[in-house]
């Protein structure tokens, strides 16, 4: 239990550090990927609702505390994403890579839309299609690319820290 959460927290922190520093130098189409979403979704898919939710909450709190203006907003969004993606845990199969990738894409779009709605729409920035085209969709695609690697790392972490979530090979 302790080992599992220590590993998870470490993964979250490392992802966040990379997101705020290294990935800024390797922007694609002028966006950075959202690693926290990838971590949340991967853990929710492999370990279920409760773990996904707590991971999401931790990711959100970290993001809120370090760079947010209001504490709690991102926490809530990430937590909900973790909870909903956790529903997909019933179809979890270790060698299925398409489900987590699709989930990352959809979650990042939802996250981007909510960010837009809470921070931009309320200030009268109405051109939603423009923001979808230039920020939300590229970010989702880039996140999916990163998820190809990061999902495997999460699988590795699961194997070493919480083998009970591993499914048997067949």
């Amino acid at each position: 239990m302790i080992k599992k959460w220590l590993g998870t927290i470490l993964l979250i922190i490392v992802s966040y550090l990379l997101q705020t520093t290294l990935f800024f130098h390797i922007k694609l189409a002028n966006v950075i990927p959202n690693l926290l979403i990838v971590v949340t979704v991967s853990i929710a898919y492999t370990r279920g609702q409760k773990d996904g939710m707590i991971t999401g909450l931790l990711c959100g709190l970290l993001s809120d505390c370090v760079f947010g203006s209001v504490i709690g907003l991102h926490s809530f969004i990430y937590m909900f994403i973790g909870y909903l993606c956790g529903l997909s845990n019933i179809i979890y199969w270790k060698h299925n890579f398409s489900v987590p990738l699709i989930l990352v894409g959809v979650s990042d779009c939802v996250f981007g839309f909510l960010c837009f709605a809470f921070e931009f729409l309320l200030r009268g920035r109405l051109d939603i299609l423009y923001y979808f085209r230039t920020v939300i969709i590229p970010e989702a695609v880039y996140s999916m690319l990163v998820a190809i690697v990061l999902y495997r790392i999460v699988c590795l972490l699961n194997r070493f820290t919480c083998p009970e979530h591993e499914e048997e090979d067949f």
Partner: protein
Amino acid sequence: MKPKRKFNVPARVILVICSLACFILVIFSFKYKDGVSPVKTYAGNIMQPMQRGINTLGNKLYSVYDLFQTKKNLINENNELKNELNQVKAEKIQMIEDQNELTTLRELYKLDQGYAQYPKVAARIVAHDDSNWYNYFTIDKGYNDGIRKNMNVIASGGLVGIVSEVGKSYAKVRSIIDDNSYVSGMFLRTKDMCDVKGNLKTLAEGFIDVERISIDAEVEDGFEVVTSYQSDKYLEGILIGYVSNVTPDTNNMTMTARITPAVDFSKLDTVLVITQLKNTDEMEEMTTYD
């Protein structure tokens, strides 16, 4: 078997409880902005050294990749020289601008002080914000280096932003191109007032917005916009950028325009923080007159 029961709370219940906690946090942090800032500062203090470490690592890898040089000391020396050069360049540009300002506008403005005379601290950008919606960054100087909230940040002669949060050895800067940013500006040549607002949408083309220029203002493309004396946070006379595309609004009372920032934000890695606050400056003047 009894402790096991503890973890069998349904996920739904945890979700509801945590959601409520989040809402309470949102309301709390909205109402008591100062109350939550210690928490943020604490988090920042923990994250900053790690971010600095990774960033220097990234920068190093990058410079190796960029220059095809393998000798570490060369790179280090190069970086140091670059920093120094940036600083000197910034100062030089400021001096030239100052001089132009002085010779052409001294009688008009009675400006006998330019911003080149302000005390400054050089700082390196260590991390950027975690989303694509904002333009915040953190620098490696903080409270211990004499940096305070609302200090102005400049680079190579132009305004970069304002310090929005200060930790022990880091500070968070909101740049003027952030969608939330708002700077009260002034045309250097005609002294007409305007508002410079960040805009994520036009930023992709290299512009941000200028609003509420008076319809009577005789402004043309290429006019310089500087921070105005009206602003209570920005020191007067710092170059923001150059306007273009001045068009009248539909209300026929104001005009809007685009402004190209004087600073290239995509290549920014060192900045200068002016360690002088506008308010304290005025306060000092008031106390000396007493």
